[in-house]
């Protein structure tokens, strides 16, 4: 097998992967970096983030405020030492982006502008109109081009982490153009592969977000942490699931039901006026808003459409000028995909799966329990997001922990004087190749990728959606176990070597199945309601039993085992999450 020897392999070239690569290149230009991605870097899903990135910017704001908003937003499941580090690093990383040319929106005096987001006491979301993720990704990608030590391997699909003596020492990847399996030998590996929203049928996530890296680490023995926490964003377009940014509400947009009534006031988020007002009504946290929709729907107060029930996001009062300046993409998306011009009509929206709070278990340094292996970005769980991520923390997270992972991996690579033996790593790579070859050899099983994907999508939505019960989750766990077994009977129709998307989709489906099972089983075991995980049979938060992270361990065909680890509490004791009220 063709082998490339490098110092550090990064899997995934979105925001976190690129940030990690630049951090390594800057900390030691002699370190060789292989940056692998199944897509060209600018296709990575960071590109679709709209509203902005949080970091304290205003004099009247403070790191404590950002800490408190994040911890209460996460329903106290965040590790507080990690959140402290995160909020402290956030403004620095965002300033670094400015130095690299990121076209942040500005105030009239030339400073970087900030906007309010949900659950935020003082506005601290840096934004570039409503294409913040796009601009951050392209800025990072373009910046990365000046470092000769970053060698890109675009359109390489990584299938496995290669372990030698219990440490991660490389990866096996398919070069998509030729179909050949390639071995990358390294001293450290960083996974930056993003989330797994595609496990669900209705999601803002692009087709590529299939949890590949999560599954890889999980199979290699790293636990998946807090997987039961899946964020529904309250405002997606019906049909496509296209995201309408929270920035729309940050700029003053309101949500109304079929009576034109601002229903959020009925869910402890009011009173509605004065508006706009921070941490209230439409600027409440995402979990609460999505849950309120569910209740409105039960009460028959939503609006029915061919693509399911919706409520209305009304931006008309902002006026055309402000909409064009601050939310041009939202206007374009609404006109194009639902035929609604937000200047003239309200936008139909419904909750949509958006973000996986859980992920590869890492510590505050982005390290996993496996020596040599790091993870950062949405695929990882540090955890700063707890049970519900605060809007606009994720773009900042990929910078802070991407660069931390990069520096940590650089240290590991510098400390290791030699690479592992060729024969040992080749043996691991051959095992990875055999798995892929095996997929081609399946004949006559009769299962299809699209069929299994559909079954997985519907059982996850039915059993593990916004509200869950023991019964619904048990059904989903059983169905997912069956789907896992049925996966062995998939027939690949495409036997070609060149850009074989039949093969890639099969591998992606395999990853999603493992990740989905971790989500469902972790959700079944968490007998409480916290943040985005809401149980109709356990409606209260139970700090006594569950102020703990869940840790799902891979068990092949069997359901994963679930262990727990205490949350790190340093200075904020769990309390009631309070939104709304009269405070300004």
């Amino acid at each position, binding site marked *: 097998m063709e082998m490339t020897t490098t110092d550090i392999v990064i899997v995934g070239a979105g925001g976190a992967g690129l940030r990690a690569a630049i951090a390594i290149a800057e900390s030691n230009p002699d370190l060789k970096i292989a940056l692998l991605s199944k897509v060209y870097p600018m296709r990575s899903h960071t590109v679709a983030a709209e509203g902005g990135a949080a970091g304290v910017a205003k004099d009247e704001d403070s790191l404590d405020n950002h800490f408190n908003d994040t911890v209460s937003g996460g329903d106290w499941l965040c590790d507080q030492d990690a959140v402290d580090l995160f909020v402290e690093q956030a403004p620095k990383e965002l300033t670094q982006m400015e130095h690299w040319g990121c076209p942040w929106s500005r105030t009239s005096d*030339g400073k970087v502008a900030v906007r309010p987001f949900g659950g935020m006491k003082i506005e601290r979301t840096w934004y570039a109109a409503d294409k913040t993720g796009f601009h951050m990704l392209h800025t990072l990608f373009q910046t990365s081009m000046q470092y000769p030590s970053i060698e890109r391997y675009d359109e390489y699909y990584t299938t496995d982490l290669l372990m030698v003596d219990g440490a991660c020492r490389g990866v096996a990847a398919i070069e998509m153009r030729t179909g050949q399996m390639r071995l990358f030998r390294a001293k450290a590996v960083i996974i930056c592969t993003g989330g797994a929203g595609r496990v669900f049928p209705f999601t803002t996530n692009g087709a590529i977000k299939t949890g590949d890296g999560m599954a890889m680490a999980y199979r290699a023995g790293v636990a998946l942490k807090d997987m039961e926490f899946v964020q529904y964003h309250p405002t997606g377009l019906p049909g496509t699931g296209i995201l309408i940014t929270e920035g729309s509400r940050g700029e003053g947009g309101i949500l109304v039901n079929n009576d034109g009534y601002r229903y959020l006031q009925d869910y402890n988020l009011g009173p509605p006026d004065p508006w706009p007002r921070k941490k209230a009504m439409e600027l409440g946290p995402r979990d609460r808003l999505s849950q309120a929709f569910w209740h409105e729907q039960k009460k028959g107060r939503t609006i029915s459409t061919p693509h399911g029930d919706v409520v209305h996001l009304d931006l008309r009062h902002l006026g055309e000028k402000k909409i064009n300046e601050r939310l041009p993409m939202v206007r374009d998306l609404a006109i194009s995909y639902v035929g609604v011009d937000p200047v003239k009509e309200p936008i139909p929206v419904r909750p949509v799966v958006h973000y996986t709070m859980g992920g590869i278990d890492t510590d505050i340094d982005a390290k996993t329990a496996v020596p040599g292996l790091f993870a950062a970005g949405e695929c990882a769980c540090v955890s700063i997001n707890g049970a519900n991520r605060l809007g606009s923390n994720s773009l900042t997270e990929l910078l802070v922990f991407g660069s931390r992972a990069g520096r940590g991996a650089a240290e590991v690579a510098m400390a290791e004087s030699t690479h592992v033996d060729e024969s040992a790593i080749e043996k691991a790579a051959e095992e990875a190749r055999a798995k892929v070859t095996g997929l081609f050899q399946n004949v006559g099983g009769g299962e299809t990728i699209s069929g299994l994907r559909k079954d997985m999508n519907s059982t996850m939505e039915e059993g593990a959606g916004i509200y869950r019960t023991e019964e619904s989750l048990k059904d989903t766990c059983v169905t997912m176990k069956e789907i896992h077994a049925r996966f062995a009977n998939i027939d690949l129709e495409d036997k070609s070597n060149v850009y074989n*998307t039949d093969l890639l989709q099969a591998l992606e489906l395999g990853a999603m199945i493992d990740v989905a099972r971790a989500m469902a089983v972790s959700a079944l075991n968490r007998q409480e309601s916290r943040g985005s995980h809401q149980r109709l049979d356990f409606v209260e938060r139970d700090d006594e039993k569950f102020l703990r992270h869940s840790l799902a361990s891979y068990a092949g065909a069997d359901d994963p085992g679930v262990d727990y680890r205490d949350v790190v509490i340093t200075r904020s004791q769990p309390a009631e999450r309070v939104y709304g009220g009269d405070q300004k």
Partner: protein
Amino acid sequence: MSLRTFELEIMRYDPDKDSEPRFETFSVPCEEDWVVLDAVNYVKDNLDRTLSYRWSCHMAVCGSCGMMINGEPSLSCKTFMRHMPDKIRIEPLANFPIERDLVVVMDDFMDKLASVKPYLVAKEKKAVEDGSYLQSPAQLKKFKQYTLCINCTLCYSACPQYALGEGFVGPAALALAHRYNLDSRDVGRSARADVVASNEGIWECSFVGACSEVCPEHVDPAGAIQQTKIASTLDYFKDLITPGRDK
């Protein structure tokens, strides 16, 4: 939801099997609000698993899903079936080598993008602790439009000059160079000029403007190239008048 059936005539090419590209026709029942990408996905999921193409975001921002749709370079996720005739011809983006089916080889584009040094060259390196550069909304507006390129390469597909295969740097890369040249924080213009103002750079453009017409993000690369030509001409005359001037 009303269904309408379309004939999709899709170009197929598998270098493992085919000596040259061929067309294959699929009949696809489409919903009213579908885009062409939805119809192609229908083919993939229900009619032929071997069809290869790129896509991800389905919201016109990742830039993956460009195709020739009835002869026009288009983003398939933003081309609506309701505007389409009953018969649709879908081909890989023109002016690029075909890798397989609708997947084209991107190497040349990626090299050209990198060749213009598309990153900020600051006068002096500033420490993060020293805070952000000031940039007025007016200064931002000067280059903002040219930051919006999603690298979908539709403009390369539409460009008659790029089609000649003579090494033209091309619309997206030149517009990106212009973006950094116009940024108030940047001093890299002369470093970029080697490529931008070379024989393969701006002077190759014959100003047909097809690039700007097909651009889904209204970046107007043709405008960027013309502006660069003017700036570069001024540089030339300034150099004649004051040789060795500080660029």
